[in-house]
């Protein structure tokens, strides 16, 4: 019984990290973009584009090429978003909504055209789990943290690196200045378009990475709409993480845990527990955190604002 319980829990932790991995990529990118003052509702579109890009790339030249193609596809979507929001100064929310529709439609069309309506199940080469010797045999957390695909380990480096970059480098400072007070930033000699475009492109690349991870490290196949709202979830994660990279990484784990509860309940034989309600918990929590933080006080002050 105890052995069952600990198996269930370590399975739950493993699933938590697995669900959290693509979310963390997308959310860390969005975090940087929002700190630069740009909220990107088109993230969902970049994720699904990344997923299709990864499928095509991996089909041609293997998983590594898949990751490159996924990132490139996410970047491409971000270029379009940056063109409208940063260069044409169009409304970010409206543009983001359109970009998501565009990418969902385009990926669906391309996929169905190539693989047929209804389609044969298409399988893609995937990257396997890379267990870290020693660490992966730690009790409870060993398998969860150290028996994952290599991309997960990349996040262990990336999250602190972004935190350091944002806090300590000129680029990071310029990015945050654009999000807090673009007028002052411009007076200080920061080039607004350069900073915001870079931030948006970084977010697009990371969203593409998230899509590639879904295909190449998890599903092993592409399915229409497989981004399944993760772009919007990433925005919730950024808010819950209070626009700080390490907070964002922790919040991604929380959303991953809510998703993984399903596996825990199944392992424990509690099929009757309504896990849908647990899936809603992180969103409720995000709203509470926002209300408690005074909403705007915590967000970058110029977030979503159009420059005149």
């Amino acid at each position, binding site marked *: 019984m105890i052995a069952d319980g600990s198996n269930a829990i370590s399975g739950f932790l493993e699933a938590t990290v697995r669900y959290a991995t693509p979310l963390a990529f997308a959310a860390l990118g969005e975090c940087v973009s929002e700190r630069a003052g740009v909220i990107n509702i088109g993230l969902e579109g970049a994720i699904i584009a990344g997923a299709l890009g990864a499928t095509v790339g991996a089909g041609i030249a293997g998983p590594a090429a898949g990751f490159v193609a996924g990132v490139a596809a996410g970047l491409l979507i971000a270029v379009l978003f940056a063109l*409208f929001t940063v260069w044409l100064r169009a409304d970010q929310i409206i543009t983001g909504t*359109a970009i998501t*529709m565009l990418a*969902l439609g385009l990926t669906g069309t391309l996929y169905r055209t190539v693989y047929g309506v209804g389609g044969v199940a298409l399988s893609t080469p995937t990257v396997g789990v890379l267990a870290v010797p020693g660490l992966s045999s730690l009790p409870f957390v060993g398998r969860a943290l150290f028996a994952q695909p290599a991309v997960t380990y990349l996040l262990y480096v990336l999250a602190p690196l972004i935190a350091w970059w944002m806090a300590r480098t000129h680029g990071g400072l310029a990015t945050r200045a654009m999000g807090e007070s673009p007028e002052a930033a411009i007076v200080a000699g920061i080039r607004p378009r350069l900073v915001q475009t870079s931030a948006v492109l970084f977010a697009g690349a990371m969203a593409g990475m998230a899509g590639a991870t879904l295909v190449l490290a998890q599903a092993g196949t592409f399915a229409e709409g497989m981004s399944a709202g993760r772009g919007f979830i990433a925005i*919730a994660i950024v808010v819950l993480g209070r626009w700080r990279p390490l907070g964002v990484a922790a919040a991604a784990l929380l959303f991953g845990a809510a998703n993984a509860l399903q596996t825990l309940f199944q392992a424990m034989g509690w099929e009757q527990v309504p896990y849908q309600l647990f899936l*809603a918990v992180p969103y409720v929590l995000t*709203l509470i955190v*926002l209300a408690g933080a005074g909403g705007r006080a915590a967000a970058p002050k110029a977030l979503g604002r159009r420059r005149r």
Partner: protein
Amino acid sequence: MNTLARSMVLALVALAVLVALLVSTGHAPLPALSALANGAFGSTYAVSSTLVRAIPLALAGLAVAVAFRAGLLNIGAEGQLLIGACVATATGALLPDVPRVLAVPLMLGAGALAGAGWAFIAAELRRRFGVLEVISTIMLNFIAIHVTGWLVRGPLQEPTHIYPQSASLPVSQQLPMLIPGTRVHAGVVVVVLLAIGLWWWLRESASGFRLRAVGMNPFAAASAGQISVSRTMVGAFLLSGALAGLAGSVELTGVTYALYENFSPGYGYTAIAVALLARLNPLTVLGTAFLFGALEAGAGAMQRNAAVPSVVVSVVEAALILLVVAADQLQSRAAQRAEASV
């Protein structure tokens, strides 16, 4: 450019986008386009399918338009629509033996109230805590999706507990059909009346004026017009939520007759496009909703008869929004430049 010329140019460019997509994915454009047109307008039944698709899009489009007019970016029509459908279903389940003349209005009213209530959460979060509605309504959409998922597997599940959906509505809880032999239900009358009413209200009434004034410039409205900005915003949010909730309960009582997961194929998001393309004018919303209804009804036929994936229409819809946005931006910047050079 006047509105008509502008719409023509937009329609032509959208058509060009569609043709380019068809050609680049190896489909013959003519048979595909004729299947699309036939599916949307080719028969009485086709037109009725278009109308039926347009109804929820128009109601949710009105919801988005009202909020945007007040300067509120309500991305939450999807969630408000779902909660409206949930509460309408629950109301029906609680009142099994009520006659139709009473049951249907009660269900629609309950759905509208529920949508308003769901929007009120975002309104209060904004008013009391300054939480951006763009973010809160996204959260509320997801909460609504999961609440729906739970209801159709829990309290509202059909009696045999096999399928994740509610029991089918009895005839006494269905909106009557307007034209026999088609799918057009009485909801179409509700939509048209509401659009005209909203258009008149925004144009002519004092409260409608206050809403527009707050949307244009909240600071000026507050200082020069002595308008209570927060009260107007909450009011606009409630109205917007009620319209979206109504969209959900009309779809339930007029088309699906049951609640299930994925009850809305993203009506609340498409509604953003519907409202924007209509330039937030309630009367024009009827037109753009009809256009989108035709695209989506035609897309199904195109997929069946010309093997073209139906999702191509989302690309066309997205292209339309981006075109409008780009045209607006270029125009306003040209105006700015002209002003600067004087």
